[in-house]
């Protein structure tokens, strides 16, 4: 299957963005001046990573892409020696990330990697629980280190203690060091991120593979349901909101909490009463760490946490208070979920005719169940908790740069690459030490204005889902499970390319995320800040959802997302609440408008727009 040639796609530069390449690391470019690399790029299959990057990447946010470019690849190719695959290669066109799994082609080499893989991956699988416990310790230590990290301001005169304690280091040096430490902590955290993830997904993928061989028609959502944890920490933030809602009703401060959508007003009113103070104390206990949950996926600087935007959890608490007042239960039906999971496992198992297959089913199910909590839980530690703190530390760096005239607004820092920031900080620090004006004050503000214009043009560009040449076989487990690269998705992607007029579309397809069929009115919410507009019984249409969207699910009838697979947040939550969900539709938020009548079939993954 042939897709557009990557170099031709890149060659059609959007007018006004000429020179955009400098916004990203040079190794991310499709090249024309290196014939060997050029040929490799042509012969390779690249797909747009819309799952992680529905929008073009800001130069600074490229950090996490570089981090996983390294981490995923090294674990596959240098640590666990996955026999048929190396890493996943990356490129960027117009701010959109394209990725491609790199196979090991030489059968002899594959053979040589097998015993190493069995030894190394086998060790992790065998000692999973103990190693995962170590992981949690390492990860929490990294978070503590991040919290403790100081981003110093540059003083007019260094403190006397520098002399009396013979410290021998200036705040200028510490600013540079702290920035390095911050970046290094981020990269380290992503090293940990993938320590278990490749193997975790492999266990999932091959359990899925086995069950699909036994039952070719089984929807992947059912396989996920068999192994999904019920008590995963991803649910904790939402649970905390429910607890706080209940407490508010018990203490009789629920009226205060629902009196305004603005947290500052509500907080002030609560602080005026003893009961209110009692409630605020409970809130403070819940905030660390649970309110570090991001309102987005956590991958981008604009994904703020609940702690950053208290209006968001407040609206969730208000929704739950409303439910309690109506006498509607807000408890997660965990017993029911668990019983249904056990029933599904038992029924499928009962349909397996052969003893050998039943044994293999049990083995693979056991393995997948062991590893799956990590697959779900790492998200909270890395993408939510760590990232939320990390972005704010970066804002402190931005504040220093603003103070020294390098950028006009703190939020402008995201338009610089991390190595440019390091360079700019050197400029700041040397100029500070010397007592002159940094050169960058005349360089960066202008460049940032231009880059903002480029980003806007990138946002309006629609990235082809796949480019290059599709391979015959894909062996990289992530490619299969996470991005759902299969015959079907390739066909769907080539079909999407042919659609010219989005207003003519009456049917959208995605992954069947959670079964059931409903009809209702659409409400398109591009960010969690918009969920306040949701009316009872509407169908939520969102780019993607995350744990901080949880309260929205108490109101809606069904959910549709642009990105995500059967293991995405929206799919998992909808299955729990018994709501239909179609996920990973690609462009639902572009095609569907609020108020449209939709028919959502979460069993077959089809959405019909009643025009």
């Amino acid at each position, binding site marked *: 299957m042939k897709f557009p040639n990557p170099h031709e796609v890149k060659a059609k530069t959007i007018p006004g963005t000429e020179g955009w390449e400098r916004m990203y690391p040079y190794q991310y470019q499709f090249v024309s001046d290196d014939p060997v690399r050029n040929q490799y790029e042509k012969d390779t299959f690249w797909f747009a990573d819309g799952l992680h990057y529905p929008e073009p990447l800001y130069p600074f946010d490229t950090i996490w892409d570089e981090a996983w470019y390294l981490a995923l690849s090294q674990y596959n190719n240098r640590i666990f020696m996955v026999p048929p695959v190396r890493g996943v290669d990356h490129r960027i066109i117009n701010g959109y990330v394209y990725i491609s799994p790199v196979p090991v082609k030489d059968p002899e080499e594959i053979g040589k990697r097998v015993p190493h893989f069995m030894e190394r991956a086998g060790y992790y699988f065998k000692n999973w629980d103990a190693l995962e416990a170590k992981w949690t310790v390492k990860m929490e230590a990294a978070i503590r280190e991040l919290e403790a990290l100081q981003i110093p301001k540059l003083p007019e005169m260094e403190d006397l203690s520098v002399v009396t304690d013979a410290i021998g280091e200036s705040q200028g040096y510490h600013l540079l060091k702290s920035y390095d430490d911050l970046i290094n902590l981020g990269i380290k955290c992503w090293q940990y991120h993938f320590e278990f993830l490749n193997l975790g997904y492999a266990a999932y993928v091959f359990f899925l593979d086995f069950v699909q061989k*036994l*039952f070719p028609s089984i929807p992947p959502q059912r396989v996920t349901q068999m192994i999904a944890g019920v008590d995963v920490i991803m649910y904790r933030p939402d649970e905390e909101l429910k607890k706080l809602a209940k407490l508010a009703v018990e203490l009789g401060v629920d009226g205060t909490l629902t009196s305004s959508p603005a947290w500052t007003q509500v907080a002030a009113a609560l602080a005026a009463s003893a009961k209110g103070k009692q409630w605020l104390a409970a809130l403070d206990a819940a905030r660390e760490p649970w309110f570090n949950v991001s309102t987005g996926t956590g991958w981008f600087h604009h994904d703020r946490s609940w702690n950053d935007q208290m209006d968001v959890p407040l609206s969730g608490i208000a929704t739950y208070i409303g439910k309690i007042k109506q006498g509607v239960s807000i408890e997660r039906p965990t017993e029911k979920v668990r019983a249904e999971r056990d029933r599904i496992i038992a029924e499928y198992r009962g349909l397996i005719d052969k003893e050998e297959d039943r044994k293999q089913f049990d083995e693979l199910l056991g393995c997948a169940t062991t590893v799956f909590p990590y697959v779900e839980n790492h998200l909270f530690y890395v993408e939510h908790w760590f990232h939320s703190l990390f972005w704010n530390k970066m804002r402190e760096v931005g504040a220093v740069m603003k103070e020294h005239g390098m950028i006009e607004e703190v939020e402008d820092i995201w338009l610089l690459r991390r190595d440019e920031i390091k360079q700019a900080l050197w400029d700041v620090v040397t100029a500070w030490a010397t007592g002159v004006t940094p050169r960058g004050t005349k360089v960066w503000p202008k460049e940032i204005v231009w880059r903002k214009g480029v980003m806007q043009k990138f946002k309006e560009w629609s990235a082809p889902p796949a480019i290059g040449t599709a391979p015959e076989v894909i062996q990289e487990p992530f490619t299969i499970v996470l991005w759902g690269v299969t015959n079907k998705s390739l066909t769907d992607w080539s079909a999407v390319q042919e659609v010219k007029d989005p207003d003519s579309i009456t049917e959208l397809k995605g992954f069947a995320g959670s*079964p059931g069929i409903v009809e209702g009115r659409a409400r398109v919410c591009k960010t969690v800040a918009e969920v306040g507009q949701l009316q009872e019984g509407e169908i939520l249409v969102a780019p993607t959802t995350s744990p901080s969207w949880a309260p929205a699910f108490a109101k809606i009838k069904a959910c549709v997302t642009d990105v995500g697979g059967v293991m995405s947040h929206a799919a998992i939550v909808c299955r729990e609440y018994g709501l239909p969900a179609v996920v990973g539709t690609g462009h639902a938020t572009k095609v569907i408008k609020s108020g449209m009548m939709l028919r959502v079939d979460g069993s*077959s993954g089809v959405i019909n727009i009643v025009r």
Partner: protein
Amino acid sequence: MDSAAVRFGGGAEGAAKAGPPLLCWFEQCRSESVPLVGGKCASLGELINAGVRVPPGFALTTEGYRRFMAEAGIDRELKRLLDRLDCQDMEALENASASIRAAIEAQPFSAEMEDLVAENYRRLSLRCGVPAVPVAVRSSATAEDLPGASFAGQQDTYLWIRGTDEVLAHMRRCISSLYTGRAIAYRANRGYDDEQMAISVGVQKMSNSYTAGVMFTIHPANGDRSVIVIDSSFGFGEAVVSGEVTPDNFVVNKVTLDIIDRTVSRKEVCYTVDLQTQVSRAMEVPIERQTVQSLIDDEITELAWMGKQIEKHYGRPMDIEWAVDKDLPSGGNIFILQARPETVWSEKRQAPIANPGASAMDYILSGMLAGKRVT
């Protein structure tokens, strides 16, 4: 138990004390009732008792058959005719068959038995809420299950029969089907004793189907046991079974009962009954209905649930004929007409997918080495 059945000798379970009944409602039959009501009626009884909705009806038992043969004096006539018959003599065979069959079809039932049948038929009509309810009258042979014994009783079926007299006449025609020349010769060659032969006749409400079709509790294309596959079209099931229309196709998850795939086809033809001639005939489906889904989702789910119960009862994948009756209100209008074991996949000995003794790691490794083929 139905009071009528008690009055007229009780059901299968009452048989020990009162002697075997002459007539028997389907719900009083079980798998082991084959000697009394034949294979077909026993299997319908078994389904009903498994909680499956089957069009109601009753059977003339083998006891009823014997009583008829004795009261009409045909059993003596039979012995006389068959004792000296040379089965190699085709002409003699056909002559004997013709006179036996003529005798059977000409002799009325005794007044007592006519009353019994009339009463059951009246009750059946009452149960169905249809005056003189149209029924299917069909033979239900006791020896059908014998290997290669399919000629033991010819499979006679008469559809859209209405009124007591017609029912009685067709019951006799079914009985007479036990004595076709071919059946007599077959039994003689196999050494079955004609005097021991008996037949049962089933009288069952015709399903006046709005929609009908077939259902497999295993995927007929790939042997997947986790799904139920339903083919469905408007009118009687003939259109689906004969392949005359491309039916709508639904794939239902057997474990969760949600519809995971649906294909709605253009259904140009449907079969419906001409009540004048009592034969079903093809007619064109109105153009605006052709592409309408022939079962609503709730019906699909209910049907699949029934399929699952039937499979559970028999402990194996089943091949099922069903109909949605237009005379009855929804919620109680889906009927199972027939259920038999699926044979294609069930008889295929397939190798297990797992390699014996393979650990999860072995499987993961071999899976990685094989990869996922994209074309």
